[in-house]
Structures are given as structure tokens and as C-alpha cells.
């Protein structure tokens, strides 16, 4: 039988993207992504079994925290472009905003667009006062994106033996102030 969709996850729309609940159908594309070197800055490469468990845990994250990862759909085509999310598993230094784009969807500003929407949700609906992004120091693309979003390097950390740099985003209201300026 087809697994029911995850209920209770708010759907967000941006100009070109839909942020929707992660589903069973998203597993295969993520398994394919995690089979490649492209995943090296986000814990990969990983075998299918581990990708499945991490996918299941990302779904469960919504139930345990009331927020989590959205799957990113390109509105024009319905294609899965990656994911963006608000992430705070036990043991994580602080609530994070993260993003992953699949091959072929980079260079169009999708991650920026999705991250802004997720950040807006965190500040608005969830009332976050601050948010960070945990980025592998060699992940130059992600660092540039964080800086474009207004985040600044704050401190170094480590997860599963991998170094992570913590970038702190501007607090709520910064975007509004920027718009006025």
C-alpha cells in the first residue's frame, strides 16, 4: 500500500519552489544523492540502509520538535530539487537551518530562496531569536550562501569527527530592516 503523507507539516511556497513534507517517494532520490561524492559535506556518502534511517529520523524530527526538514519541489516541473530545513536533533549545538540541493539545481538561487522562506518561518511562526548553519569548512558554496543570507562565522564545532563551522544568521527583523534600507 502507499504510505500516507506526513500530516501536520506546513507547506510553504516561494516564487519558484514548494516546501512540502518529506515523503516515502523522496527516499530513492536521496539514496541516489548519498551514493555520490556530492554528499561529502553532509555526512555522505552513505549506504542505502543508513540513508533510510536518516530519512525516517528527519520525518520523526517533525513530531519531536514541531519543525524539521521540507522537501524542495520545483513548482514549474514538480521535480525534487533537494531539501531545506530546521534541524535540532539531541546533541546538536543549537537549532540549525540547513539546505541540500541536488545536481542540476544549483546556480539558480534556489537554496537562497528556500533558506529565506525557512528562516522566515523560524523567526515568524516559531519565534526563534537566533539560528545557525553548521557548515563543513571546505564547503565553499555553502559558506558563500550563508554569507549571502547575512550569516557570519561564529565558532568551530565537530560532529562525527568532521569539523563544522557554525555561521550565525541575523536575528528576526533583520530582513525587514534590510528591506527598508
Amino acid at each position, binding site marked *: 500500500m502507499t504510505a500516507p503523507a506526513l500530516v501536520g507539516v506546513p507547506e510553504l511556497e516561494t516564487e519558484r519552489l514548494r516546501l512540502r513534507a518529506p515523503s516515502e517517494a523522496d527516499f530513492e532520490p536521496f539514496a541516489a544523492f548519498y551514493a555520490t561524492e556530492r554528499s561529502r559535506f553532509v555526512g555522505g556518502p552513505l549506504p542505502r540502509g543508513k540513508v533510510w534511517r536518516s530519512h525516517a529520523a528527519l520525518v520523526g524530527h517533525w513530531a519531536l520538535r514541531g519543525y524539521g526538514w521540507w522537501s524542495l519541489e520545483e513548482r514549474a516541473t514538480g521535480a525534487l530539487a533537494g531539501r531545506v530545513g530546521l534541524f535540532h536533533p*539531541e546533541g546538536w549545538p543549537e537549532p540549525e537551518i540547513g539546505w541540500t540541493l541536488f545536481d542540476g539545481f544549483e546556480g539558480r538561487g534556489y537554496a537562497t530562496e528556500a533558506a529565506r522562506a525557512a528562516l522566515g518561518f523560524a523567526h515568524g511562526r516559531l519565534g526563534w531569536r537566533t539560528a545557525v548553519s553548521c557548515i563543513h569548512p571546505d564547503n565553499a558554496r555553502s559558506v558563500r550562501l550563508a554569507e549571502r543570507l547575512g550569516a557570519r562565522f561564529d565558532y568551530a564545532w565537530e560532529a562525527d569527527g568532521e569539523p563544522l563551522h557554525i555561521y550565525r544568521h541575523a536575528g528576526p527583523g533583520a530582513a525587514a530592516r534590510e528591506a527598508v534600507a
Partner: protein
Amino acid sequence: VTALVPEIETRRLRLRALTRRDFEAEAAWFARPASARNGGPKAREAVWRVVAAMIGHWTLESVGFWAVERRDTRAYCGRVGVWNPEGWPEPELGWTFTDGADDLPGAEAEAILAARDWAWRERALGPLASLIRPTDGRARRLAADVGARMERGVKLPDAGLVEIHRHALPGDAPRPARHAMHSGEGRA
């Protein structure tokens, strides 16, 4: 988010969706040396990921693990359900019980049978297997208590050698009346 998890009531127990409070109860249990009977102690981070994956399992597979709570005190006493992640040999009827129902003889078997019956009735899953380490005397006794039979040994990539215990289908076999015999064992 957990609306798709059905609630089941048995004589003394309630099976319901896992919540953040259950994670806290489970993390507290796995911080204690007594959790050695479940392969503990385990770090909070590890317990969090397991509980999160168990909740997500429902979305991905339409089946999963329930929190087990006592109807009298609402205290958490563990989890039971069907585990069938990618790469698993077959759907497994699994359980992890804290000491929350140690004073309720047969409660663990009651929870396992409720999950087994639901899986067959609502998902046509069965006869289910339980994968048990040969050294896990508690789990082997519980499997026997609920009428499962040891079928064969199998080697798993992560867990080494495990035994497959095969459960009966609901109504297939008379419910064993041996719960009370084993309820006090190993719980000094």
C-alpha cells in the same frame, strides 16, 4: 504529525504514538545501568535518533513502533511494533521495555500480542519474525511466552548472528498461559 499512528487499548496497556516525553523517559532509562538488558546504557543523542526514526517509520512504511503506557498510571514502559527499514531481511516484530511494567506480570507479552494482532488485521503482515541475539535470554523467553518458535540463525551485517523467532498468526495457536512464570525473572 503522528496522527497516522492508531491507538490500541489492551486490558492494562495503551499503545499510542511516540512523543517527545517518551523520548525523555527512554533517555532516562538508557542512562541507567539497568538498561543493560536492552543493550544499554546509550547516549541521549543515540536514543533521540532511534525514537525519531521509529516515528518516521510510520510515514515511510505505514507501520511502526508504538509507545506502550500503563492505563493505570499512564507511565511509559517501552515500545513495541513492526520494524522494517530498508535492507531489513523481513518485517520484524520488535520491542524494548523499560522497567515501567515490571510489577505487571505478563504486560510485555500483552503489548507484543496487541502489536502482532494489529499488524495482521490491519496490514496483513504475518507470520512476523523477531530477530533475537542468542545471548538475549529475556527476549527469547518473551518470544516463547507469546507463542513464537525459534526458526533459524541468520547473520546480519550490523548485528552479527541473530535467531529468527517466528510468531504465530492471531488465533492460530492457543494463547500461552505462561506469562506469570517468567514475570519475575532477572529483575532483582
